[in-house]
């Protein structure tokens, strides 16, 4: 483990470890990016969607006659129209079924009911307002506990496991009997109910597409906001029956993704159907309310956790029972073997033998849930639970939470470490990261200050989170989505003049792939980063990939890029040997050139070699300098970190003020430190958001009460603290670059640090847990009940 990034390449080359300024920025800072709504095709029409005011209702009729009278309204598409072509249902990535448009019943507020195609976005909106839908309201279930009660109305008789309940599936991991025995034998047992509410990624750009059907050529081009264009192409081919080679899915610049642009939404399908019907390009762009009310959600996990430990605070056992609210359909993008994602990484950074986790997926009258919020695979939920439980244990036995963590961490020499739920952690050095965070924030002094403040009746809290992430899905033996193995890919073409075009199977939504993937190639081949162009997001040209989510770009596609570059280097060695009239074994490589061992002045640069690949390659060798790699990772990667948060609570109003927040992250070897810091800053802010501000709540009728940015409280620069970051570096032993991925870490790690700080401030009042978001009204109610406010 180190804390320094020392680049192997010069700044001119700009390989790993250099804070290379981003290649994509010049277009963005000039307003010259090309986002989906910027795109205009000749003859393009508009699609807008009629949505249900009810969360559950029977559709008795749809009267489009008034809408069709509006000049410019060309068509109104209903579920009945789609049913004729068998397109009213579509599969979800989790293998469930989702309506494109309902034929009989709407299942959540704001569900798509009909689509209006018109000559402008304004006329389409007028058409939507003029469509009359006759609904008969039905009873609504918004609470998954109620959905599981005996006799509860069955929402999905077509899907429920036994057709008698709203349980979608049951999943478990670990050893129940062993865990029960360990818990029974434990000196100390702590248990808690922890709810992690429904939240929404709310990328600033909403979702949208242009479907462009060319009837003459039989070609469907779908320009869209997708984090996984190849998977979309395959799904579209399977659902529509169009030949896959005649489908081109193309992404453009995307205004954030965070997992919200992984699923297939009905709007995309409706635009495709509309374009097939009218033979013109059809654009669909969500507005913010549609985005917040109908797109996939994250979290909504009701967790009951029980932790056992010795008197001294050595953790022995963990048992977790969880209800997962998936809304009306399971549209999660989890690998198919893992309906609750990687939630069983819940043993966290701690070394103990006995764990058992069970999760029940449940249907309710809410939009499809279980997707992502900068973490798709339920790691946030797991980390929140274990980090909260460890903190409760520390407080219960009167041990400092930092000390308790230190005493329970998996030790560096234990890696690779097998967890009781079956994961093999690749590498880690948890104690050093926590110590570094404690040093950065001045932990001991803060504890003294807290004691002094508490004596004066002031509420100050210090919270720690020492998380272990699990990313880089994933090894093909365990990881697939609808059968597609979760490899990823890169294709590199070196041009004769020594310039490089590389195409990758993952997709940037702001992470800076055009820069970091060029840096990987620069690192491996020594071409200057400025000479390398990275392309992605066009299924006609890019190699097949599973897309960008779950922090998998660097761990999987990054590895593919390194491996493809190494294939090129292998060929370059042969070419160099030919040019230098030396044997391959006598050549040595340094970034950018091969030289003859012992004769450093006899060398060929990579550019010279590239030219020779097209002009002077040896007989018997194929011309050109190209390679492609489909990388199947041998294991996942396990980034980690320790975060410490200091809060002050206003006793009068219940407002939580974050005074300081220190984040020490370890994501293995770093490609671009500037970009890693940026990812952490953003991730922390998306960890802050659900901790204190954001939640999608519903009234008992299923009305979404956070359907605009007036009520869905995305933090501004004022709410967001000045994040302080630090690093340790523990390379992944199995990744070709030693990198681990970082996009989600901070979003996963931050909430328990903040929650632990708030509970720490209130613990002496008898408060054991506060569910996020820890709003002023919630804190005030606690203080009021305790007679403090």
């Amino acid at each position: 483990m180190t804390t320094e990034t020392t680049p192997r390449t010069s700044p001119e080359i700009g390989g790993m470890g250099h804070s290379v300024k981003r290649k994509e920025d010049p277009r963005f800072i000039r307003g010259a990016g090309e986002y989906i709504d910027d795109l205009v095709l000749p003859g393009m029409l508009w699609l807008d969607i009629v949505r249900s005011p009810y969360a559950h209702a029977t559709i008795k009729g749809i009267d489009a006659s008034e809408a069709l009278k509006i000049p410019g309204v060309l068509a109104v598409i209903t579920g009945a129209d789609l049913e004729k072509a068998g397109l009213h249902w579509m599969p979800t990535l989790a293998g469930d079924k989702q309506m494109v448009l309902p034929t009989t019943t709407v299942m959540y507020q704001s569900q798509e009911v009909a689509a209006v195609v018109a000559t402008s976005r304004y006329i389409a909106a007028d058409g939507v307002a003029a469509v009359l839908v006759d609904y008969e309201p039905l009873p609504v279930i918004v609470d998954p506990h109620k959905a599981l009660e005996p006799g509860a109305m069955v929402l999905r008789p077509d899907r429920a496991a036994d057709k008698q309940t709203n349980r979608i599936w049951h999943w478990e991991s670990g050893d129940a009997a062993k865990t029960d025995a360990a818990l029974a034998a434990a000196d100390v047992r702590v248990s808690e109910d922890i709810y992690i509410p429904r939240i929404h990624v709310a990328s600033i750009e909403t979702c949208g597409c242009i479907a462009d059907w060319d009837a003459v050529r039989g070609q469907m081009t779908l320009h869209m906001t997708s984090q996984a264009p190849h998977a979309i192409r395959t799904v579209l081919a399977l659902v529509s029956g169009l030949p896959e080679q005649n489908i081109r899915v193309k992404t453009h610049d995307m205004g954030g993704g965070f997992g919200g642009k992984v699923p297939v939404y009905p709007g995309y399908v409706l635009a495709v159907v509309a374009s097939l019907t009218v033979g013109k390009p059809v654009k669909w762009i969500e507005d913010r309310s549609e985005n917040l009310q109908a797109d996939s959600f994250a979290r909504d996990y009701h967790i009951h956790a029980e932790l056992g430990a010795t008197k001294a605070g050595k953790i022995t056992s963990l048992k977790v029972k969880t209800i997962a609210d998936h809304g009306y359909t399971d549209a999660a993008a989890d690998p198919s073997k893992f309906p609750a994602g990687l939630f069983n990484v819940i043993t966290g950074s701690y070394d103990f033998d006995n764990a058992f986790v069970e999760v029940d997926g449940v249907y309710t009258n809410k939009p499809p849930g279980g997707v992502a919020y900068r973490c798709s695979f339920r790691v946030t939920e797991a980390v929140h639970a274990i980090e909260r439980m460890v903190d409760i244990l520390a407080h219960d036995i009167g041990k400092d939470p930092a000390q308790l963590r230190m005493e329970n961490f998996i030790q560096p020499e234990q890696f690779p470490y097998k967890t009781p739920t079956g994961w093999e952690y690749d590498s880690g050095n948890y104690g050093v990261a926590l110590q570094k965070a404690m040093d950065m924030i001045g932990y001991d002094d803060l504890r003294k200050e807290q004691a002094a403040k508490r004596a004066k009746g002031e509420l100050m809290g210090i919270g720690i989170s020492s998380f272990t992430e699990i990313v880089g899905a994933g090894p093909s033996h365990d990881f697939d989505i609808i059968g597609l193995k979760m490899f990823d890919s890169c294709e590199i073409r070196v041009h004769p003049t020594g310039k490089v075009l590389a195409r990758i199977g993952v997709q940037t939504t702001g992470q800076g792939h055009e820069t970091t993937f060029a840096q990987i190639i620069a690192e491996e081949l020594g071409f200057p980063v400025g000479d390398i162009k990275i392309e992605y997001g066009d299924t006609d040209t890019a190699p097949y990939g599973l897309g960008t989510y779950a922090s998998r770009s660097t761990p999987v596609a990054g590895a593919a890029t390194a491996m493809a570059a190494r294939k090129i280097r292998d060929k370059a060695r042969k070419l160099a040997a030919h040019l230098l009239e030396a044997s391959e074994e006598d050549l040595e490589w340094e970034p950018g050139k091969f030289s003859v061992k012992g004769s450093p002045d006899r060398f060929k640069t990579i550019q010279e070699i590239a030219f020779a690949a097209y002009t002077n390659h040896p007989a018997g060798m194929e011309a050109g300098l190209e390679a492609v790699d489909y990388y199947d990772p041998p294991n996942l990667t396990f980034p980690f970190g320790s975060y410490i948060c200091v809060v002050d609570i206003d006793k009068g109003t219940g407002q939580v003020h974050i005074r300081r927040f220190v984040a020490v992250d370890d994501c293995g070897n770093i490609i671009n430190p500037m970009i890693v810091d940026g990812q952490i800053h953003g991730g922390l802010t998306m960890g802050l958001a659900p901790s204190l501000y954001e939640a999608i709540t519903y009234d008992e009728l299923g009305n979404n009460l956070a359907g605009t940015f007036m009520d869905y409280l995305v933090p501004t620069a004022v709410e967001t603290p000045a994040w302080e970051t630090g690093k340790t570096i523990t390379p992944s032993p199995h990744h070709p670059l030693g990198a681990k991925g970082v996009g989600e870490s901070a979003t996963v790690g931050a909430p328990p640090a903040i929650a632990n700080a708030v509970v720490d401030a209130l613990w002496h009042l008898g408060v054991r847990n506060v569910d996020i978001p820890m709003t002023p009204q919630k804190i005030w109610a606690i203080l009021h009940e305790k007679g403090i406010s």
Partner: protein
Amino acid sequence: MIPGQFDYVRPADMAETLRILKDREGEAKLLSGGYSLLPLIKLRLAQPALLVDLRDVAGLDGIAETDDYLRIGARATHRQIHEMPMVRDRYPLLHDVTAVIGDPQVRNWGTIGGSVAHADPASDWPAVLLATSSTIICRSQSRERAIAAREFFLDTFTTAIEPTEVLTEIRIPRRPRGAGGAYQKLERKVGDFATVGVAAVVRLGANGRIESAGIGLTGVAETPFAATDAEAILAGNAPAEELFRKAAAAAGAQSRPAGDVRGPVEYKRAMAAELTVRALRTAVERALANA
């Protein structure tokens, strides 16, 4: 979000404006900054047939002190008011409120007249006008009239303005010696409507006692209102924390909040009281500094 259809006119002067309001009574809606109105039109919660843009109408701007009051033209933006040196120096209460309405862009374009006429039950200005017992001037073709702020806010989004009238100016009583005011706002995040907003004004007499007090609350009833019970408790007494608490409790009790996403009734009442105390503390400090 796409607005429904409407007509739009931009009359050249007040006479034309008033004529349009008369001719299209009940159909026309005045447009000032638009930052309250347009989101509602885009959500299609408001569908006026005609928008009458006041932009070219002369005489609705300007901020000046007369012998009796501070006159603020209806089309003065929140930022123009905020940046007036005279407001900053002499009317810290107004400086408080103009710092916390919406966000910078909203303050660049949103106007005091638009905000007051809109009468959102959680908007900031009404609390200030109630606390200061200001006067709102409205003009129609037949007359100009002055409406006391305390008789102006009738109900949610409903004021004493007639459909044929234009709100032309706000008159805030001049700040006398010994008077001070402050605005306290609790919001879920910056730029939000107030969960609770409290404007407090106190005037200290030569004996150090509170001669009179004005308290306006927003966000905690169907319309902003004056906390008259609290005002009565304060009047004639020496400023003290205990007195503030007593008055604040009365302000909380007089609130009629609805439970919603900003909090349950009990919380809002408690916050009305808490923010009243905080506003009173600052108001008294400022009054003492202005003795």
